[in-house]
């Protein structure tokens, strides 16, 4: 069952990654025209992604939290027995970054849905950029940990 849930967790993370990356590109590097693939990618209505990204973050986080004990008992023990401390550290950083990102979600929602000042524009760029970076890091760290035996030929 944990393998199935891990795959669902991964798929939800892909959706969140797509949503947040779209929103971050449209916010940090807005397109001046909509011609071409890259410009079209940056010209989405970023505010429309806010609710979906909050929901996806919460659901992906909750599912990850549910399967976390299985990692702690089986995988981390194995990783530490193999003395791959840096792999364990990658995952530790992921859990801390995601937790801090979770606390930012109400503020993220606020600056996208309620605030319309110049100050909010700056806050939108920072929060969206930070959450995007957190999710990208977590996605990559999760994949490295998931594939650790293949990556290290163990």
């Amino acid at each position, binding site marked *: 069952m944990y393998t199935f849930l891990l795959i669902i967790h991964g798929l939800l993370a892909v959706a969140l990654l797509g949503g947040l990356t779209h929103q971050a590109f449209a916010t940090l590097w807005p397109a001046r025209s909509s011609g071409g693939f890259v410009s079209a990618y940056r010209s989405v209505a970023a505010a429309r992604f806010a609710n979906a990204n909050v929901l996806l973050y919460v659901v992906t986080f909750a599912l990850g939290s549910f399967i*976390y004990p299985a990692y702690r008992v089986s995988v981390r023990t194995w990783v530490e027995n193999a003395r791959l*401390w840096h792999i364990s550290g990658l995952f530790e950083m992921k859990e801390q970054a995601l937790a*801090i990102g979770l606390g930012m979600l109400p*503020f993220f*929602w606020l*600056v996208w849905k309620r605030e319309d000042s110049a100050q909010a524009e700056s806050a939108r760029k920072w929060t969206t950029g930070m959450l995007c970076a957190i999710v990208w890091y977590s996605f990559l760290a999760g994949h490295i940990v998931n594939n650790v035996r293949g990556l290290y030929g163990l």
Partner: protein
Amino acid sequence: MTVTKVFAIFAAVFAVVYTIAFEWHWELFSYHPRLGTFGWGQQASINGPVMSWYGALATAVLVAAAISLATLPFLRKRSVPLWIGWAVPLACLAIWPWFLRAFFIR
């Protein structure tokens, strides 16, 4: 006056309290994954690892919610500077690699 005014404060306090709670073991509870049992506060490991992450999250949620709501009456005529909602979490994120350095420098 709406509760959304304190969301920036919540984000800032949550990041600080979570960082302190995890690093200094102020977790509300601990979880023994091999046994499937919980215990209040910091626990010693029993027949396997002990997880403090859930408890540190709970501490951060409760303290951040309490402080945010306590500031609400003072915000009737004032606005919260929005930068604290991202700058404080960013500072906390920047501290974590230092706390975790033992994993990478051996």
